[in-house]
Every structure is written in structure tokens, then in C-alpha cells.
């Protein structure tokens, strides 16, 4: 059975030789000021969302529930978590979207979290 903890990417933010970010700006960007201030090194894991071809930074201090898809058995980003609550949401793994678009039979529109796949006329 696939592990929900897929291989993780690596984010490295080095402010050892820099004044870093002021607390107000760091908070505005959704970062903990203590992690990106003067003289700090911030390292974090990143993961790809199961539903959209995007990457998110895992917040090690997060206490809210992280979006999880039981069909894919993987984490999903907050944007896809919100989108998945929509009554007209169609569940698709990101690889399904990639396969359909790369086949040339479908064109993608909408947003990456709410993709609209339309059959292309030339390929029926």
C-alpha cells in the first residue's frame, strides 16, 4: 500500500549573511518571522499535491488538519482541499489530468485545482 508520506522536496532559505525579513513582511507571506529573520537558516519539506500539478511547503508548525485525499491516499494542497468541497467537484488524480491532456484528446481550462477537461474536436 502506498505511503501517504511521498518523497519530499527540499526548501532551503539562507539568511545567515542577510538581514532577513522583518516580522510584518514575513507574516504577510505566511512565514514564521523567527524562521526567516536575520542570521537564520530555514529548511522545510515540500510535497506535490495529488490533485493539481503544484507544490506546497509543509508547515512543520501546522496544527490544523492537512488536506488528505482518501482516494489517492496522499496530501492535497489547501486550494484543492477547498475545491474538493464544491458540490460539482470531479475527483481526478494529477496524473489522470496529465495523461488526458498529453494524449491530445482533451484541453484543460479553468484553474489547476478545478480543471475543466474538454474533448478536443479533432480527436473526437
Amino acid at each position, binding site marked *: 500500500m502506498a505511503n501517504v508520506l511521498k518523497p519530499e*522536496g527540499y*526548501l532551503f532559505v539562507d539568511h545567515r549573511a542577510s538581514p532577513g525579513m522583518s516580522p510584518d*513582511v514575513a507574516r504577510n507571506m505566511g512565514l514564521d518571522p523567527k524562521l526567516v529573520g536575520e542570521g537564520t537558516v530555514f529548511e522545510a519539506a515540500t510535497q506535490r499535491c495529488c490533485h493539481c500539478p503544484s507544490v506546497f511547503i509543509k508547515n512543520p508548525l501546522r496544527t490544523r488538519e492537512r488536506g488528505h485525499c482518501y482516494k489517492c491516499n496522499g496530501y492535497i494542497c489547501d486550494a484543492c482541499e*477547498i475545491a474538493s468541497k464544491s458540490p460539482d467537484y470531479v475527483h481526478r488524480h494529477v496524473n489522470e489530468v*496529465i495523461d488526458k491532456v498529453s494524449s491530445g484528446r482533451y484541453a484543460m481550462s479553468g484553474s489547476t485545482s478545478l480543471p475543466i477537461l474538454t474533448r478536443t474536436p479533432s480527436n473526437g
Partner: protein
Amino acid sequence: MAKRIFASGNVTFTASAAGSQATGGGYMTVVGSAATQITDILEVMISGKATASTVAAMYLNRASTLGTGGAVALAGQNSDGAMNPATAALASPVVVAVDYTTNEAIPSSTVTDGRLQLGLNLFGGIIRWNAAPTQQMTIISASAPGGSVILWNSSSGGGSSGLADAHIIYESF
């Protein structure tokens, strides 16, 4: 199917608002060139070169509208090349650009488009993001919303314009 590096040098990443055109010469974008093309974004690195404290709200973002009029050819310290010199040329090369002729790319402000936050202080700050296998950001097709990524500085996110070097490693299929 070979890894390539799109590098920029001495680029002033000009802060611009989400949902508005980015400033020509002040961003980096990778755009698919065929409807069936898949491109993986594997690594992003930014080395700040500002001479005073400059916080840049850098994002690796989708573009809601692609640049028009054709990409301006890379010049100066900007480059795009294969990591292995024996790499064969792609039939449909991915478009990499820091500037477009007519209209610039517009970073998406849609809340359901994923974006990677790469904010740093460009006065001595360094940031590097490296994707694990299967965990990369992916470009699908050659049109919005999934057909491109843009590395840009967001004034909406509190960023200020500043000088930096950067690279994006990608692989097309």
C-alpha cells in the same frame, strides 16, 4: 527528455501586482510549446545581489495569461541550455523568457491555482527549492492555466524590487 537550466543573471525582479502584467525583463517564465507537452520544474534557486535590505516576495506561480508578441531572445547573462552536452534538440522546445514583445505574462491571482512561496531578503539571502522524484511542479500543455510557470516578485505579497541571479531546472517530455 533531458534536463535543462534556464538561468538569469543581474535581473532586477521588479515587484508587480498579482493579476497584472509583470514587468518586462523582471521575471522568468517557462511555457509549454505544444498542447500535449509535459514539463517538470525540478529546481529553483535565487541568489540575492541587492546592496541594501530588500525583501522580495518571490513566487513560483501559474500565469493566468501568457505573454504575447513572442518571447524576446535571451541575452546578456541570461541563458537556457541542456545539462548534458549530448542532449538532442527537442522537436517542440519549451519557451523560456524574461521579457515578451507585446504584452507581458500575468501571474495568476486565482486562489485555486497553486503557487510556491520563495520569499527572501535579496541583500545576501539565498533560496533553493529542489523537488523530490514525483514531487515536482508540472506544466501541462501550452496554455493557461496549467501551461506555464512564472518566477516573479509580488508587490501584492509585500515585495520590493531587487537585483538577483536565479536559475530554474526543468525537463520536458
